[in-house]
Every structure is written in C-alpha cells, then in structure tokens.
C-alpha cells in the first residue's frame, strides 16, 4: 500500500509554461541574468545587473530621445529599388521583401522631426535588424532629406548608427552613399548647425567611415563595437589576437575619436545639454 498515492494530477510544468505570455523574460547576453521584460523596458533595455546595453530598434530610440507624442516620421515608405538586379545565393529583391515583412521596417534607417526637452531636432536612426543595418541608397537619401529638413528648419541633426557597413547588394551605389552623406553634413556644417553622432553597438565599415565619425559631438553607448574593419578581418590580417576592449566605445574615447561614452539613461539629458551650449 502506498502512502504517497497521488490524488490529483501530475504537476504539469509544461502546461504552466504555456500559460505564461510569450516572451515575458529576456536573458542578458552578457551576464546571463534573466530579466522581466517590463523591468528591462523601464531600465531602457539595459541589464540592471551588469549594465549591458541590449541592441534596440529605432522605435525604442525615438521613445527614449523625443518628448512624448512629438515625433513625426518622414518618407516612412521609401524602399530600395534593387538597381542592379543583384543576385547572390538569394535575389536581393526577395531579401528586401522578406526583411520588410520580418522587421516591419522599410529599410535600415528612419528619420523624423520632433522635440527633445522642448527643442526641435531632426533625428535619424538606423535599424540593425534590417540586413545588418547596411547602408544603401535609401539610407543615403533619407540622411540627405533629414539634413535638408534641418537646414530649412534651422534645427540640429542627431544620427544614431547601428550598422555593419555599406550594403553589398547595391555595390557602387552603396559606396557613393558614404560621399553623399558626408557631403550633406558638410552643408549642414556650413549652415552653422550642430550634428550629434550617436554610435551604438555595432557601428562599423562604411557608416563609421562616413557620417558616424563626423559629429561635432561623437557620442557612443558603453561597450559599443566601433571600427572601420571588422575584428575578424583585422585578426586575419595581423595573425594575432586582438587586445581586450579593442574597438569598443571606451577604447575609441581613449584613442581620441569619441568625445564621450554615455549610458543610455543619460543620453537625452547629455545631448540636450550639449545642444543648448551651441544652438
């Protein structure tokens, strides 16, 4: 005779999990901490335990920087034209279609105008989830229009970078976006208007070698990877391991290419403070 006869059903751990809303918890990729989504959002997607800055999209950056309800986006429907009918293992056209469907973004950068601590600013923000935040014609053209808007309205420009570099599938067109965006920033500069470059994880390749490095103020999020060549390529070239912290935000500040490293929670206040000094 068993003393422990179960009168009710087995503990259904599986069922219980299913009852929880999908994706309520996030795991920190740096320290492994399990964090409740709500708490993470409240902490601006920064791990409360180790301060790791999660990669976030333009939606989150716009909500962090703009005063609530003041943001108006422009050219939200602009998409790439696939000017070269590029095909690698996949058609570029299909790649774009799939990525639009998957991410809900039309390309790797969005821009608009709004108020930041009551100051009018034009902000453009990249989305790394869109083909690695790569810069093709759309990113270049949107930055051109963002700068034109700022010159017309006499406002500062903030560009938030998150990119693996230029988009290979638009070949030379992509390369020319480096020149195009830099030329527009020269115009903005000639108009006496400030440009703040905010580099997030990762900012590499053609984006770093153009607008991201051209800020009157170059600001980076903590530990963001920032560089021209990717770490793997450099390692291959020199045949040695790379030093700890190489190409991270703090390293770039140490080497003199970033004005300051700013934690996400201080971004809005720090940028506003800088802008009030010059604009």
């Amino acid at each position, binding site marked *: 005779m068993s003393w422990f006869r179960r009168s009710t059903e087995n503990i259904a751990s599986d069922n219980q999990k299913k009852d929880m809303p999908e994706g309520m918890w996030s795991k920190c990729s740096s320290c492994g901490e399990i964090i409740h989504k709500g708490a993470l959002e409240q902490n601006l997607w920064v791990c409360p335990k180790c301060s790791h800055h999660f990669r976030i999209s333009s939606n989150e950056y716009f909500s962090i920087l703009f005063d609530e309800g003041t943001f108006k986006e422009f*050219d939200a*429907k*602009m*998409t*790439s*034209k*696939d*000017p*070269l009918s*590029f*095909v*690698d*293992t996949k058609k570029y056209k299909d790649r774009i279609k799939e990525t639009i469907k998957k991410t809900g973004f039309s390309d790797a950068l969005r821009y608009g105008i709004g108020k930041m601590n009551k100051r009018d600013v034009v902000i453009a923000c990249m989305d790394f989830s869109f083909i690695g935040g790569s810069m*093709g*014609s*759309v990113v*270049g*053209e949107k930055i051109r229009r963002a700068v034109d808007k700022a010159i017309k309205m006499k406002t500062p420009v903030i560009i938030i970078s998150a990119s693996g570099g*230029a*988009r*290979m599938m*638009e*070949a*030379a*067109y*992509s*390369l*020319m*976006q*480096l*020149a*195009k965006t*830099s*030329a*527009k*920033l*020269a*115009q903005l*500069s*000639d108009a006496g208007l400030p440009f703040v470059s905010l580099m997030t994880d990762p900012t590499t*390749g*053609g984006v*770093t*070698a*153009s*607008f*991201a*490095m*051209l800020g009157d103020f170059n600001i980076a999020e903590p530990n963001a990877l920032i*560089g*021209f*060549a990717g770490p793997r*390529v*450099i390692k291959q*070239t*020199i045949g040695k391991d*790379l030093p700890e912290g*190489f190409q991270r935000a703090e390293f770039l500040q140490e*080497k003199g*290419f970033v004005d300051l490293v700013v934690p996400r929670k201080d971004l809005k206040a720090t940028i506003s403070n800088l802008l009030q000094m010059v604009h």
Partner: protein
Amino acid sequence: MAKVVLEFEKPIFELEQKIEEIKTLSDNVDVSDEVKTLEKKVSQLRENIFSNLTRWQRVQLARHPERPYTLDYIQNMTTDFVELHGDRAFGDDKAIVGGFAKLGDQPVMIIGHQKGRDTKSNLYRNFGMPNPEGYRKALRLMKLAVKFNRPIITMLDTPGAYPGLEAEERGQAEAIARNLFEMSHFPVPIIVVIIGEGASGGALGIGVGDRILMLENTWYSVIAPESCSSILWKSWEFKEQAAEALRLTPPDLLEQKIVDLIIPEPQGGAHRNPQQAAMILKDALLDELKTLRKLKPEKLVERRIEKFCNMGAWNE
C-alpha cells in the same frame, strides 16, 4: 624582368613571340610581308579579346603587375613634380603619394595611391593600402592646393584601406570620413581618375570630385569580388559571379552615372604602352580642367554635392 601574362592574354603573346622569332631568324630574307600579315592578325586578335572581356578579366587587368601606377603617370604626363611627404601629425604613408606638378603649363596638385612592383617595393608601399596618415597627408596637400587656388587631381588604385590594428587605433574610419567631408566642399576643381583598383572606402577616401574619370581596364566598387564572394556565398570560389553581380566595370559605372567618362587605353591595356596611356589621360585632364576652370567656386561646390546626391536608386 619576366613578363607577366594573364591567361586570356596568352594567344596574343604567342603570336607576338612568333613575329619576333621570324624577325630575328630571317637575317637576309625579306619577311616584311609575312610580318605585316601577322601584325595585322595580332592587332585583330587583341581587339577581339579585349572587346569581349568578362568582368572578372577586367579586374585581373586592373591588377596587372605591369600596369602603370600613380608615379608612372606623374612621370609620363607632368613636369617639375615635387613630392611632398607626411601628414604633420604621425608620419609619411608610402601608400599615398602627392605633390605639386605641372600638367601642360598648369600647376596642379596630384595625389594618388601607390603600389609597388616587386616584393620589396610592395612591402614599402604596403601593397597600396593606406593607413590613416595617408589620408591625412592627402588632406593636408589638398588644403595646400585650396590655399593657392590650384586644381586637384587624384588617382585611385588600391585594394583597400589597410585593415590593421594600428590603423584602427589611429582612426582609419575618421580619416576617410574627414576626407569625404572636406573634399565635398573644397572651392577648387577636383578631378578623380580610377587608374587601377577602386576598392571601397579606401579608394573613395581620395575620390570625391567634380569629374570622375575611369580608365578602360579598371574596376570600382564597394568591395572586392573575392571578399564579396566570401561574405555572400560563404566561399572564396564565387569571385567571377561576384564580379558580375557587382557590375564594377567602367561601362557599368558609366551607366549607373557614377563615373562621367571612360578613358581609353592603348590596345592590349595600359601596361602595353604606359607612355601612350599617360598621354591619352593628360589630354583628357587638360580638357576637363579647361571646362571646370570656367565655373565659380560656389557653383563648383554646389554642383559637386548635387552630383553625389543624385547617386542611388529608391522607390518613394
């Protein structure tokens, strides 16, 4: 020096060798008729092969180790060249050369990537891959040109900016970005010539100008075909396909409105006759300068920025 012959150049060389042989072997016999026929044949063969080059073959020609480099063009088409060294901050990068020279009777600032011809000179030139101080030297020299109101001519021929540890520490990205920014609004004429390989940001770093010329057997793109193959196909084997997909030849780029003019090369490529190649380029440059000199500085800058703004393709 042993001749380097590319696979598709072989039939041409074989025929040329045959002509030479006939000439040397026929001491007292008159072979002029036969030689003439063969020379005509070789010319036709060259014409044939060179008018049907694949994109990958064009890339190979652009990298031909006997191709003239920046200093060869400077030597063959200018006089009184004085090379100027250093960025006044870190050092002198040997992968970019520059200085004042006279093109015709016109003083100009000429700057270009410089490759080496053998192992030793290639190490010295870092295979034409500049470090940040190379771009900063170029910027310093361009500012000199602006100060003294001299036109700028740049020559692009690089497999890329050097992807090294120190290059990153010294701000490779910033150096290139700064040049793009500054070159876009310099109030003097800037003519850019792609004379060999135009690989990505490392090439564009001295490549913003009013007129972009491209020699016939060169390429220009966002990435080299091999690297493109390794990233998109995950293998180095698809370089031919990558070269096709990238559309990186002069006719491609003319069609994309990224370059303005293709400069023809002597039959068989610039390496077959560097002097003639330089003369053709010199004439084209003088022509371009004449037109650009008529424009007011403000107009020049406005047109230059507009030109780059028109590059790209998108749906509203």
